[in-house]
Structure formats: structure tokens, C-alpha cells
């Protein structure tokens, strides 16, 4: 190496070309927004073109870029075609995301533009995951994440910076510090002036440059890139930029003054062009031609955008989940059964998946030690610390790592210890994982599994005992699996790992160490198929997870009294096998739904709403729901025992639906 690389004529002209394309594109978008040809929330990056061009211009197509809400420039500089971007902003089928994502959610996967996000700081964990995938593949790919100074005050930033440093990932944090977080000056957000100072304790190289001085950005980034390319840990480049426009188009900016004078000094395009003229890299004719070419290309993009039709509305329903392809995940091998437990079943399924597919990795707190329940015991020994990764207590970032790694082609299984703490990762799960396939118009897939545990009974109180799965079923784009037996756990975990969508796999602590006989290598079970655990004619009991065994207890007691209950375990909540449930209720005319979550707002309401619709004319009694009372989980044993629904409540509900209209002559129907 002969010293740091310097910007030369060729590179400067390439930068100017890109910057003109961004500038002309965005100025046109501002006009189109006023005429409503472009709609929605539009955040322009005028003033920041130099950073986009200098950073993305040095990357390869297989390097990944993650951006935030001010993303047009990054997408253009990374190679997304102007006409496809313009069509996207017009909501057309020809858009990069088929008109579904819009300005805040641009994706152009074929050139490594992996996505923009509308949640400030929400992209940082995803970029970590992408960098982890590159690292595990042993490639020299580099990931770049753009963010504004406002994101630095978000928790995701700190979690992500820590993980990047800890794992020495090939990730470059590029902060565009424009001095405003949305509408508020940086001084009102933080006493720390430089973003590069915030990351100082993590010990990686960092630099602050004038973002209007494009050669300085280009040279500083060249330096970062060489280091990251060589696999030597993360870097942070802070670029002090000037935001020419408001936070969004339409922002009146009553909180700002003196923009014109400052723009005179800080327009990166004018400055680079002046420098290029001064150095003789181009003459004024060539300079004008660069602008004219860009304008012409934008004209053409607008024409093509206008000509593109709006997407077929029904596409919205089709893009919620990625289609399942390929062969079933595991092959049944004989019918050797052995005594096992839920924990061993999960452990075995993880080990088999990791043996069969090296893209499968396991992440989570204490997973390399096996975790407190031994669900991951022995995996680190067999597969090594690279694929079985302990994480800090950073649920948000860890979930984001799994999403980013999944988008980059791995099949991560992430454990969030206790569903109570999934609340800390909900933005990543709901706003990123569940929506990525949809918002990218099908370009991205998130084949990840998030394992978590719910359930009461361990005297752990209101923050370690909840059953929150119903929330997740309200989120389009997630699948939710909730097995009640070791055999189903093993089979469904294998299916979940093979699924191209994010799957939340909800385990129950109270089921972990129950002994049962199960096949050593289970036959595959598709997601969305209920199991009729016990046939019966008089009533249908739908029970999930821990309540299944309780329901079976109640059914045995009812049977002794001459009432035969059909017991169904849905096994997966999304998609729900409504057909099997409705078919049963149409036969029995009576239904009880049992789960451990609170009755009000629990998933039973959804099942009941579906049954009353699908089996209305056959219902002979009101559907009864058995769940927890509407209160936090108590910690003291007598109260927790009273709180927790069980066989007794299922039995009482069953008697109530049987006796609703008449004293039943048992067994006589």
C-alpha cells in the first residue's frame, strides 16, 4: 500500500454523476409531492448526496447497505434504477417494491440495497445480522448502515454498537449528523456533541468528517472499507451534513433560521463541482452535461413511473407470507419410540437442523451454556461458538441480528428467554421481521425462528410468567406455533426452521420436563394443522400448550360421567386450522376453549369469534372460554394456584355448555 487512497479525476466524476442523479431525482420528487403524484411521508436527503455517493460508490454489489427513512440517495448510489424508484414513490407496480413499500421502505436486493426503515434506529440491529452472515460465510463482504444523529439516543444504537464491537463484525456505521433529530436540534437531545465520542468506550476506530467535503468523506470511507474488508472489526464514520429540506416534505420548519447562508457554504455538490473545475478534472460544458443527463434520466423515470399501472390490490393479501417451497424438513425414520421430554425434543430438533444445514445458527442469552433449561445443551460443543452464540442481554438487537442474518441467507434460531421480555424486541419482530417480505414486494424473506417461553406456575410473578402469544397472532406476517407435546415440539421446530417466514415458537416452562414417549426422529408436521387428540361426540374442547393435558384430564372425568369430549390441540395459532375446529363443533354443537392466557384479550376470543361464524347454525350452547382472570400473575403460591386455569375449570365449563339448554341424558345424543 502506498498511503491512503486519494480521490482522483475518475472517481470525482463518478461522484458528481451520482450526486446529480440524486439531487435531480429528489428535487423532482419534491415537486411531484406537491402535485400529489407522489404521496405519503417523503424525507429528502438534499445536502447529503456526497455521503451517499462517496460511501456507496466504493462498495461492491454484494456488500449490503441498510438505510433509514431518508433513503433515496443511498438507494440511488447503491444502484437502484431511478425509474423503479420513481415508480415506487408513485405507488406503481413497476416500483422497486411493487408500490407496496413507498419512500420509507425502499429495497433493491439485487444490488445489495437491503432496505430502509421508518423506525429511527430500527435498521442498526438488522445490519449487524447481515454482517454476521458475511462473517460466518467467511466472505470479505462488508455491511454499511446509515443512520442519523437522532438514532444515537435510541436503545438499539447502543445495543448494536456493543454487539458489533464484541463480535468484531465487518460493519461500518455511517452517521449522517445533520444536527437535527426530526424537528429538534441535537443540543436538545444530548449533551454529547460528537457521535464518534459516544462509541469511544467500545474501542473501535472512529472518525468525524465534514460531510459537505466530499473528498474527505470519500477518503475517510476508503480507509474504513479497507479495514472492514480485511475483517478487522467495525468502524464508525460520522459525517457532519446539512439538511437542506425539512424533516419531511411539508414541514414548515418554524424551528430553523438562516438556511440560505448556510447552504451557500455547505452544498456538497457545488463544492465538489467547484473543486473539480479548479483542478481541471472537468470543464464547465462537462459539468452542465452531468446535470442535463441527470435531468433527462429523471424525466424518463417520471414518464416510466406514470406509465406503470397501479398494483393489483389483491397482491396485498398474497405478499403477507412467503410461499413455502422445497421438500419437507425431516424424514421419518422408523417408529422407534423412546422416553423423552420437551426440552430434549427441542434440543434434538436443533441439533438435527444444525447438522443438516450449516445455515442454521443459534443465538441467545446463555445458549452456549445450554440455557437454564438445557434446551441448547451440547450444541456449542458440537457446532462451535461461531454457530451457537451467546448474546448480551440486548433483546432488541439480538432479535434484529437474527432478522438481518435471515435476510442475508442464514436460518437463525434466536431465543428470547421468557416471552415477557419479547416486549423488548417487539419493534424488531413486528416492524421489521413481520413486514420485510411484504414491504419489499417479495424481495426479502426472513426465515428465522424466535423461540421463547411463556407460562405460569414457577412462582416467578408478574414479569416472568405471562402468556402473551395473542398479540403475536394480531401481526400479519408472523407465524405462531405453540406445541403441547415433545413430539410436536420436535416436529414443528424442524418445520419452523425450514419455513421461509418468521416463526415465533412459544414453549411452556411447565411442560419442559414432563416425560413422554415420542418417536426418536419425528414425522414432519406442517404448520397450520391441528391435532384431534381425543375423539368425542358431545362437545369440542380446544386447548393449547399446558392446558391440553388439563383438558384431557377433564375429558377423562367427563367420560366417566358418560360425556365424550373431542379434544383438539391447534398446535399452531397462525395459521389456525379453523376447518378442523369448525368441523368438530358443527358435529358436537358445543365448544369450550382453554388456554393459560387471560380470557379477555387471550387467543380464545379469536377462536370463539371464528367458531360462532363458521358453526353458528350448529351451536347449541354459548362457547365457553377458560383462561386466566384479568390480572397480572401473582407470585404467592396460593394466589398463583388460584389464578392458573386447569382441569377443574375446563370440566366446569364443559358441564356448563352441556347443561346449557337442558339436563342432558348423558351418552344418549
Amino acid at each position, binding site marked *: 500500500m502506498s498511503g491512503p487512497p486519494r480521490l482522483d479525476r475518475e472517481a470525482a466524476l463518478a461522484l458528481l454523476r451520482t450526486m446529480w442523479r440524486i439531487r435531480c431525482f429528489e428535487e423532482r420528487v419534491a415537486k411531484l409531492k406537491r402535485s400529489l403524484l407522489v*404521496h*405519503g411521508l417523503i424525507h429528502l436527503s438534499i445536502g447529503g448526496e456526497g455521503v451517499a455517493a462517496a460511501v456507496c460508490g466504493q462498495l461492491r454489489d454484494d456488500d449490503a447497505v441498510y438505510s433509514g427513512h431518508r433513503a433515496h440517495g443511498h438507494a440511488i448510489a447503491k444502484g437502484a434504477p431511478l425509474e423503479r424508484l420513481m415508480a415506487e414513490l408513485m*405507488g*406503481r407496480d413497476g416500483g422497486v417494491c*411493487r*408500490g*407496496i413499500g*413507498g*419512500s*420509507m*421502505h425502499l429495497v433493491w436486493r439485487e444490488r445489495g440495497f437491503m432496505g430502509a*426503515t*421508518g423506525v429511527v434506529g430500527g435498521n442498526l440491529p438488522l445490519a449487524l445480522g447481515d454482517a454476521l452472515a458475511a462473517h460466518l460465510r467467511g466472505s470479505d463482504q462488508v455491511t454499511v448502515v446509515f443512520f442519523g444523529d*437522532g438514532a444515537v*439516543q*435510541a*436503545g438499539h444504537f447502543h445495543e448494536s454498537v456493543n454487539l458489533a464491537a464484541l463480535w468484531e463484525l465487518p460493519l461500518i456505521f455511517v452517521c449522517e449528523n445533520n444536527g437535527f*433529530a*426530526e*424537528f*429538534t436540534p441535537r443540543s436538545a437531545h444530548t449533551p454529547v456533541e460528537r457521535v464518534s465520542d459516544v462509541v469511544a468506550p467500545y474501542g473501535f476506530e472512529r472518525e468525524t468528517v465534514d460531510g459537505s467535503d466530499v473528498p474527505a468523506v470519500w477518503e475517510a470511507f476508503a480507509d474504513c472499507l479497507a479495514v472492514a474488508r480485511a475483517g478487522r472489526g467495525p468502524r464508525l464514520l460520522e459525517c457532519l451534513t446539512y439538511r437542506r429540506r425539512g424533516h419531511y416534505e411539508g414541514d414548515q420548519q*418554524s*424551528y430553523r433560521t438562516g438556511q440560505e447562508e448556510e447552504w451557500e457554504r455547505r452544498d456538497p455538490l457545488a463544492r465538489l463541482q467547484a473543486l473539480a473545475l479548479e483542478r481541471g478534472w472537468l470543464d464547465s460544458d462537462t459539468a452542465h452535461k452531468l446535470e442535463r443527463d441527470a435531468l433527462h434520466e429523471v424525466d424518463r423515470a417520471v414518464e416510466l413511473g406514470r406509465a406503470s399501472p*397501479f*398494483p393489483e*390490490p*389483491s397482491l*396485498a*393479501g398474497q405478499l*403477507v407470507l412467503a410461499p413455502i417451497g422445497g421438500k419437507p424438513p425431516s424424514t421419518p425414520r422408523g417408529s422407534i419410540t423412546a422416553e423423552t421430554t420437551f426440552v430434549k425434543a427441542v434440543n434434538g430438533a436443533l441439533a438435527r437442523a444444525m447438522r443438516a444445514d450449516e445455515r442454521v445458527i443459534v443465538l441467545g442469552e446463555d445458549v452456549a451454556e445450554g440455557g437454564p433449561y438445557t434446551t441448547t445443551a451440547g450444541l456449542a460443543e458440537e457446532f462451535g461458538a461461531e454457530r451457537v452464540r451467546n448474546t448480551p442481554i440486548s433483546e432488541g438487537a439480538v432479535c434484529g441480528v437474527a432478522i438481518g442474518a435471515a435476510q442475508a441467507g442464514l436460518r437463525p434460531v434466536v431465543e428470547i428467554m421468557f416471552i415477557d421480555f419479547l*416486549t423488548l424486541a*417487539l419493534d424488531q419482530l*413486528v*416492524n421489521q421481521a413481520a*413486514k420485510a417480505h*411484504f*414491504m419489499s414486494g417479495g424481495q426479502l424473506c426472513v426465515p428465522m425462528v424466535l423461540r421463547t417461553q411463556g407460562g405460569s406456575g414457577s412462582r416467578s410473578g*408478574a414479569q416472568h410468567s405471562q402468556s402473551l402469544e*395473542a*398479540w403475536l*397472532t*394480531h401481526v400479519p*406476517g408472523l407465524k405462531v406455533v405453540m406445541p403441547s407435546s415433545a413430539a410436536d415440539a420436535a416436529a414443528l421446530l424442524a418445520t419452523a426452521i425450514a419455513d421461509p417466514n418468521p416463526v415465533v415458537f412459544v414453549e411452556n416452562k411447565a411442560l419442559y420436563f414432563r416425560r413422554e414417549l415420542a418417536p426418536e426422529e419425528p414425522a414432519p408436521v406442517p404448520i397450520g394443522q391441528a391435532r384431534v387428540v381425543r375423539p368425542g361426540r358431545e362437545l369440542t374442547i380446544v386447548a393449547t400448550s399446558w392446558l391440553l393435558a388439563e383438558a384431557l384430564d377433564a375429558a377423562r372425568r367427563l367420560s366417566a360421567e358418560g360425556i365424550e369430549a373431542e379434544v383438539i390441540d391447534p398446535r399452531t395459532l397462525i395459521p389456525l386450522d379453523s376447518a378442523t375446529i369448525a368441523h368438530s363443533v*358443527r358435529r358436537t354443537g358445543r365448544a369450550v376453549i382453554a388456554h393459560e*392466557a387471560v380470557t*379477555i*384479550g*387471550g387467543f380464545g376470543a*379469536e377462536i*370463539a*369469534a371464528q367458531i360462532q*361464524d363458521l358453526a*353458528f*347454525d350448529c351451536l347449541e350452547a*354459548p*362457547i365457553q372460554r377458560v383462561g386466566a382472570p*384479568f*390480572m*397480572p400473575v401473582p*407470585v404467592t403460591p396460593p394466589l398463583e394456584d388460584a389464578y392458573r386455569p386447569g382441569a377443574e375449570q375446563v370440566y366446569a365449563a364443559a358441564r356448563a355448555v352441556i347443561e346449557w339448554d337442558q339436563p342432558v341424558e348423558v351418552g344418549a345424543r
Partner: protein
Amino acid sequence: MAREIPYIAAINEAIHLEMARDERVLYFGQNLATTENDEFLKAFGADRVRVTPISETAEIGMAVGAALAGMRPVVELYMAEFMLVAMDQVVNEAPRFRYMSGGKVKVPLVLKAGYGFTAGWAGQHTGSIYGMFMGVPGLKIALPATAADAKGLMASAIRDENPVCFFHHYLLTLEPGEVPEGEYLVPFGQADVRRAGGDVTIVATGWMVGKALTAAESLSSEGIDAEVIDPRTLAPLDLATIVTSVEKTGRLVLVDQATRHASASAVIAAEVADQAFSALRAPIKQVTALDATVPYSEPMEAFVLPDEAKIAGAVHQVLGSAPVAA
């Protein structure tokens, strides 16, 4: 005296009045009071009106702590979806302390957030996530549909001794309505029968109330007399008013702007199917958004969201429905 003011002005008026009435009321959030001319800042000063960084977890957590210490914070969150960043504080902290302390402490705070959608806000700024909070014991949920309710429910929320999630719809922001001047309180847990009718009950929340009323008017020209009920708060939920109505009409259509699966309307459907079983003459129908993220493209947005025609269609279905075949 009532006069017409926009929905958002009604909310601001309630916060303003409560801050004047009770100095323990604090107001903070992102981008709040970005200029010195801000009316709250001028009236109550920078100690009580605070701009915060983009740190939702700390904002809500700080409010919980301040409430525990005797204050009555109102947190401005702008967009409901960003509550997901701080869901731990909303679910594991705010509604838990009173219970976990055996009733020794209380957490009077208001989390104020916009929801719904407005053209082109796409997938991450449109979340109608209020239904998720129905399963959280200890939280109250207000969902005003009119300017008057917005004022009255906000004032009640601030005076409540518990954490309240107050959701206002983006598209109602500038909607004017008659609002009483001065102190005005709307109690929680009291539904409003917005239109009386005997043929079918329509329960709608937030922005959907106006749509339901429009649909009801057009149905009345066909001789169908719909009763329209706005629960106004989802927790507590005034189920009695809904059940009484269904006992009269025998038919129920639920209108909810959120995605259907495990929605607030599913919760109501399950309750009514149980409590009004004998009165129901047709299956309860839900008119909700398609189970999909809100798309950016305008024609798709219309396809995904519920509207007057879909409401009227569901009413026809429950009125005309022969028992559903297997």
C-alpha cells in the same frame, strides 16, 4: 357552552386545562415544544413541558417513575407503532407496580399516541395496535371518535389513577366537532349509542364510527334501521350496552380498523357470542382491515381498509343470512 373546534385542539385543550388545574401534570415527548412560541411551553415552562430524544423506552420509563413519585405525566408518542420499541415499559412496568406492590403505589400516567393511517404512510407508521393492549391487565384504553370525546376522555385519562393508553386517529386530527368549554369529563367504560335502531347493532371504534354512521344512513334509505354504538374505551369495555342492544336487534356487525386476527373486535365478538347467545339470530360479522401490513400504493390501501360499502355489505349479510352451510 359548546363551540366547534378540531379534534386535536380538543385534546390539547384538555391537557392544557388539566395542567392548569393540577401542577403535578407534566407533558413530554419527542419534538414537543420545538419553538419558544409553543403554547404549552409559554403557559407551563420548560420544567413541566419537556422535549425528549428519540428514546421511547426511557421516555415511558421516566413517566412511570415520575408517576410513582407522585406526578401525573402525559407522554406524547406521536405514533402508536413506536410504542413497540418500549413495550416492556408499557406492559411489564406501568400496569404492574400497583399490583406487585400490593396496592401500595399507583401509576397515573397517559400514553398519548396517534394510530390508523393516512394516505401513503405505508407499513411502519399506520399501526392500529390498540387491540394488543386489551390483553394487558392494568392498562386502560381510550379511543375517541369525536372532538368532544377526545377532550372528555383525555381529561378523565389524566385524572385516572392508572396508566391509560390514549389513541387518536390521524384522519380525525382536523375533524371539527362541538366541544363543551371548560371542565368536561367523559367517564371511562361508558359506550355512546350514536344512533338508535332496531334491526342490527353496529359497534365501531375511532375513525370507523363516522363510517358506520354514514353506512347506517344509507341503509336507512333501504328501510334498514341500524343502531350504532361507539364503546369509546376498550378497557374498561361497556359490554352491557352492546349486549342490551344485541338482545334487541339479534344481529351484530363489528367495525374495527385494525387487522382482523385476534383484534379488539374478536374480543368483543367472543364476549357477545357468549353473553347474548340466545338473542343472536345470525353470526356476528367483523369488518376489519385485511390481515396485511398497510401498503403504500393508494388503490391497495383502499382494498385493505374497511369502508362504508364493506360495513353495509356485512349488515346485508347478517340480515339476509340463512344459516351458514357446512
